[in-house]
């Protein structure tokens, strides 16, 4: 049913994403879909990489490793932003459109009182994207 599953990842906190990553991989396996990991990085050095290019390489390596351990076809794409803290939702929507993904699997926190003021990234994507969105908690 699904051909391409997009998985937004934050490489700084990759260890918190295990459940979402495993869920995405299992879904990809059952539908024989391709997994595409998407990351957003600032133009400036970040905790993950000195340059956006280095970030792209790390993301590609991450995608390959995921692909090997789960036995699914993977791919990666990264976007840069001068203001990633704010632009991330917009950038993810762009990534969804451009990749042609038909399902997004992403991790999000359990809602708290602050979510009445600021929607979480997962909440925003689920509310605004045209494709199906699977939020993993």
């Amino acid at each position: 049913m699904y051909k391409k599953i997009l998985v937004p990842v934050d490489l700084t906190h990759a260890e918190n994403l295990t459940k979402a990553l495993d869920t995405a991989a299992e879904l990809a396996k059952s539908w024989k879909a391709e997994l595409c990991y998407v990351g957003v990085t600032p133009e400036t050095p970040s905790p993950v990489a000195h340059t956006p290019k280095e970030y792209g390489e790390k993301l590609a390596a991450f995608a390959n490793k995921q692909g090997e351990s789960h036995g699914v076809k993977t791919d990666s794409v990264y976007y840069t932003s001068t203001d990633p803290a704010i632009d991330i939702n917009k950038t993810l929507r762009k990534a969804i459109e451009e990749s042609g993904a038909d399902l997004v699997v992403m991790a999000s926190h359990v809602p708290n009182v602050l979510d009445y003021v600021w929607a979480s990234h997962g909440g925003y994507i689920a509310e605004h994207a045209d494709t199906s969105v699977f939020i993993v908690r």
Partner: protein
Amino acid sequence: MQEDPNNPNEGEEAVPEPEGATETIDTDYQVGQDNIQPKIGPFGLDIHNPVFVVSGLIVVAFVLLTIIFQDAAGPAFEELRGFLTSRFDWFFLIGGNVFVILCLALIVTPLGNVRLGGKEATPDHSYFGWFSMLFAAGMGIGLMFYGVAEPIAHYGTSMGGTTVEDGVRTDWAPLGAAEGNEVEARRLGMAATIFHWGLHPWAIYAIVALALALFSFNKGLPLTIRSMFYPIFGDKVWGWPGHIIDILAVFATLFGLSTSLGLGATQAIAGLNFVFGLPDSINAQVILIILITAFALISVLRGLEGGVKVLSEINMGLAAILLFFVIVVGPTLAIATGFFSNLLAYGQEVIPLSNPFGRDDDNFRQGWTSFYWAWWISWSPFVGMFIARVSRGRTVREFITCVLLIPSVVSVLWMTAFGGTAITLINEAGMSQIADAALELKLFEMLNGLPLATITSIVGVVLVIVFFVTSSDSGSLVIDTITAGGKVNAPVSQRVFWCTFEGLVAIALLIGGGLGALQAAAVSTGLPFTVVLLLGCYAIVRGLMREPR
């Protein structure tokens, strides 16, 4: 947004690989490695431990002390400001000259070929957007506030000539003044004004911005002030020497910014009072600061692209319309010829004005020039970091030319139009009320001498308010980056915290009557920062020599 062209998913907007060759500094330090992530209620934070905590505490303590001891704080800080600007005037003046000379040298030498962000980097922003942001962050409020006031002040003191008591000059005129000579006083007054708003301040900003952009975009170090000291301190820069540099930067930024917000609030209220007769009281100022901070918060939440950039572009358009209006309905011919003669006057006087030794115009040199230099320098971490953040992809030559020369030319035009019109109105229409008005009212008194005064005054108030919003927003962005150890994707709630805090500091100090104290505090951080910047010059040259060009 850029994508990797080697990626099979590349979209239509794909651009050439953004990096290309750079000489990355090899350090084990990771951006944000000293950060802590405390959770306060629902707010998750991501902050650099010593820098955030120490600078936060100093700022809170300063605000409390200023309010509690408001009678003593004001004079004490005035004293400190006077001491620093009169004893170290030579140091500030020499520093300013070094920055200008280095910038001009970078334009003409091959080092100017180095591209910020790597050989094949492409600019993130269009010329118009970039240039608007430079101005909005750099001196928007200042130009509104001093555009009429400063030319009149220098013109008036020059006309008055020199007065000497006990062998010391007591007048405030620049250089040797021009007693009774209207043409010469005007020439000297304009040259002195442009001197304070031209090459020197922008060279200070350009140096900080260039150092930050180079060490961050090309060398891979975190986007904080301490990074420019890596060639000097090596890995020690990640310890206390670096913490102190960053804390100083936060301190300078917050106080410099609150001063500007204080000026903006006083001028906006004065303007509203002038046009609509709204009460000009502390309460009104506090309400205005709360409203403007609320606007700034909206801008913060819309991010750099949707917030600061959009507002800066709107303001550039509005400022251009106001400038054009003043040129057209004001003494057009005098402004047109004045532009060139003022530029010439500036060219002729810039060396005598920037000479630190053998002058007797102590009041002008210490009270105006070294005060301004100290102020610009204390502001430089803020403006510099903001400029750095939006300037990736430009070559050093393009960067310096645009940051140094274009704003200087615009300043000449602005001062010629606003200051020149005011002087003409005083001399030819007898509008002495412009010269007599309070500092924050001079702009509106001048506009009152031209047609459509109500409309232009409202435009003036809107300009001040929007500059206020963009300063507050870009300031929050900068302080947040420094206190997050160079991370630019820390939680948005932090930026909201700093934006709110800037408003609170401005309110607290207005209530405490401490705007003068605040200004003095901003100047006090200028002295250590001059040393910081001079070392930065060395680091820039060393860093640039190793870059592929």
